[in-house]
């Protein structure tokens, strides 16, 4: 009976690439692109309009760095130094180092933090942070608040911003990248491109130096470590290999020192949250001082530490093991790139922690070169992003092409939980892989596919990216139905999946449930909410609402097509092509962030009109199937259930029925 058909769960983003029918070029705004370094500890925005040299934009007090700290104390959302000031008093409601939480599941959060994490209601791995006052925020929203503050800073200087290049650690996986892109969207930014941080640094340095040669970039950020080897050749920046550790950063140096200070203060057990915070701040200051001096005196009254002397060699003893981990990653990456240290023309340092003398010495030893640090290591990433943003905004800058690589292998789970690699790490992106799946029996109309990222052999030890089910596979004898699934990594190293049944040529709907991501609807809701808080932009709000409505109808129609679209008599060919054309148009409009609300609404009406007869026949069919051999009572019951199910599925269709 049709009520046993699966309910359409509107969770899960729909990855479906439209046929290339769009003719409309995207208008560009040369010189209106901004580069954002969204860091664990600090963030900043830089511009390099029309080929100018990059410069960081400063706040009213002349500060370029914006602490990546967001306060939810009271009704207002406050970002930066002001939020930092509230941190000590409201440690649960002021969020720092949110980058570590991006694209992560609750089970991944094994490091100490003062926050209350709440599992998302819909199951899955997603979590929110309870910031008090009944308010729950996702890490993506917190990052969006930082990005919005930077966007506003840029707008105050240069007027409207067209788009942004946002940097991410090279070693970020798909979920972390997707989360960053989503944050940009929620902050009201058109994200031109996600750019790997070491690649951005190389861009800033390389253009500075004639753009030729072989370089390594050692990037010790607040919360991540990346190393990349690049070849520069006449404006082409080719990443040969990248590696690193997304759970090791400069903050770990601070933490090691903080733990030492606590013990040195005569304490046992664990520090309180308050003590921990004070220790961390003191440790960071001591680390910075020790880059200049041989010894420093530290006082943390709350821990009974008064004028305690820390010598540079003591600090170096504490962090030696951490630095050694970064060096091992450097060696492995050189090996992957097929490059000997002596072949390198230079080594670039990125991140404030690379000011630590031990780091510089280790890098010099490993690469056999004195590292380059003449561009401020705190700003070099934003500078590179600004240059790339200028190029992508369409300004007449001398041609620069960035060829980046996939940081982690992409694979699918096979029998017995093993991983079959389909795109190896360090493959140049964009890149696609195709895989053909076949049916085991004639009864099988769907199959589960689990996509993972990582280098381990067992799927359970890799990062789960997404699970999806291929549906609507035609009933063919075993091994006859052949579904070709394409996995496409785009230039942002983000994954999209499409599927096609080879016997019939029918495109399958692929509904991907990202393991650690937000779905499109949640993002759209957050866009609306952010506008509620921020503001006056009604056009953007109605755009977002129209997008949600259209998205719902597209999802419902597509699910219906997958379920019964292939059955005889339910959908004549002419009608199907009309519906599919409307779906394609809708996809295209949705892919364009600037689509007007009227346009989206018009498309929704057209799609509803085109699919109306199909929806009606589908219901009739379901009813007929339900009535055979049933009592009147059963039929009435079936009717009621069916109506409810259809209402649920069709969502906005009801308005159309009245109209028609």
């Amino acid at each position, binding site marked *: 009976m049709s009520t046993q058909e699966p309910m359409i769960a509107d969770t899960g983003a729909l990855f479906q690439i439209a046929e290339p029918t769009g*003719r409309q070029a995207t208008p560009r705004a040369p010189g209106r692109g901004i580069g954002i370094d969204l860091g664990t500890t600090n963030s900043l925005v830089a511009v390099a309009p029309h080929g100018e040299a990059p410069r960081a934009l400063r706040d009213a007090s002349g500060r370029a760095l914006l602490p990546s700290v967001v306060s939810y104390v009271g009704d207002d959302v406050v970002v930066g130094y002001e939020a930092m000031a509230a941190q000590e008093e409201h440690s649960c409601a002021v969020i720092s180092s949110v980058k570590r939480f991006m694209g992560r599941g609750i089970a991944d959060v094994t490091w100490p933090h003062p926050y209350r994490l709440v599992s998302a209601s819909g199951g899955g791995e997603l979590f929110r942070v309870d910031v008090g006052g009944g308010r729950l925020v996702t890490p993506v929203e917190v990052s969006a608040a930082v990005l919005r503050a930077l966007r506003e800073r840029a707008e105050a200087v240069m007027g409207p911003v067209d788009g942004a290049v946002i940097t991410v650690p090279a070693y970020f996986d798909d979920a972390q990248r997707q989360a960053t892109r989503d944050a940009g969207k929620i902050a009201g930014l058109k994200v031109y491109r996600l750019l790997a941080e070491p690649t951005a640094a190389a861009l800033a340095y390389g253009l500075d130096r004639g753009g030729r040669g072989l370089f390594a970039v050692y990037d010790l950020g607040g919360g991540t470590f990346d190393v990349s080897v690049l070849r520069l050749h006449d404006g082409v920046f080719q990443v040969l290999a990248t590696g690193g550790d997304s759970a090791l950063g400069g903050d770990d140096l601070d933490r090691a020192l903080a733990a030492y200070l606590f013990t040195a203060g005569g304490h046992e057990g664990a520090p309180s949250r308050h003590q921990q915070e004070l220790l961390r701040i003191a440790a960071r200051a001591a680390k910075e001082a020790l880059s200049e001096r041989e010894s420093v005196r530290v006082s943390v009254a709350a821990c009974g530490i008064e004028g305690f002397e820390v010598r540079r060699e003591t600090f170096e003893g504490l962090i030696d093991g951490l630095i050694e981990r970064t060096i091992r990653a450097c060696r492995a990456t050189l090996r992957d790139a097929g490059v000997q240290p002596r072949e390198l023309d230079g080594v670039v340092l990125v991140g404030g922690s690379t000011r630590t003398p031990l780091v510089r010495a280790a890098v010099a030893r490993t690469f056999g070169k004195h590292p380059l640090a003449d561009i401020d290591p705190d700003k070099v990433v934003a500078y590179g992003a600004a240059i790339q943003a200028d190029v992508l905004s369409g300004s007449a800058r001398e*041609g620069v092409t960035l060829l980046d690589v996939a940081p982690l292998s992409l694979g699918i789970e096979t029998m017995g939980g093993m991983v079959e690699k389909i795109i190896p790490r360090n493959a140049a992106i964009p890149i696609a892989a195709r895989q053909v799946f076949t049916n085991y029996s004639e009864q099988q109309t769907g199959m589960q596919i689990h996509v993972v990222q990582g280098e381990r052999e067992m799927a359970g030890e890799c990062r789960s990216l997404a699970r999806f089910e291929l549906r609507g596979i035609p009933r063919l004898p075993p091994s006859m139905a052949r579904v070709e699934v394409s996995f496409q990594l785009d230039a942002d190293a983000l994954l999209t999946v499409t599927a096609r049944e080879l016997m019939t040529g029918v495109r399958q709907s692929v509904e991907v449930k990202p393991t650690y991501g937000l779905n499109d609807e949640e993002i759209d809701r957050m866009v609306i909410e952010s506008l509620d808080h921020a503001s006056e932009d009604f056009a953007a709000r109605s755009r977002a609402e129209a997008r949600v409505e259209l998205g719902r109808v597209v999802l419902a129609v597509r699910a219906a097509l997958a379920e019964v679209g292939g059955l005889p008599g339910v959908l004549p060919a002419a009608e199907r092509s009309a519906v599919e054309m409307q779906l394609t148009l809708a996809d*295209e409009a949705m892919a364009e962030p600037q689509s007007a609300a009227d346009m989206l609404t018009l498309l929704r009406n057209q799609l509803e009109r085109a699919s109306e007869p199909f929806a009606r026949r589908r219901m009739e069919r379901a009813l007929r199937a339900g009535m055979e051999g049933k009592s009147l009572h059963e039929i009435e019951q079936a009717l009621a259930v069916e109506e409810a199910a259809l209402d649920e599925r069709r969502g906005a269709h009801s308005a159309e029925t009245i109209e028609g």
Partner: protein
Amino acid sequence: MTDDFFACMGLPRRFDLDRAAIEGRYLELSRELHPDRFIGGSSAERRAALERSSALNEAYRGLRDPIRRAEHLCKLGGIDLDSDARSGGAPTPSQAFLVEMIEARELLAEATTPGEREALREKIEAAAEERLAAAAAALEGGMIRDAAEALVIHRYLRRFLDEIDGAQH
């Protein structure tokens, strides 16, 4: 249908290609095809750029490495080393070779010192290089079947080398 990596990169279909020529052509084509160059284009143009530069990157990966290049030439010649189909699939290595491999494995299991392992490794490494050279010569002479047979053995030897390296850690 097999995608022809050589056609994709506009290079002659042969094993003996200059590494610098491959790299040079790759950079040149990338500059033209990279999706960043089409960010202001229509969605059709952007989609096409994504597909074309994906195909280019795949071809580059397939041609840059001599082993992949040799295997790709076999595939274009009708023998797919990744397939176990009886016709057109990977040739089965000879009984004699399999016996040799079993013996080599026993040697590895018995090797107790790093020096013994290293000696075994060098021997296998040399055998692998010799097979690759044989495959290259066969390909230049148009002998696809011979090349495929050499490459299958080469694969066995490489896997064994990985095992030796794995045993050391």
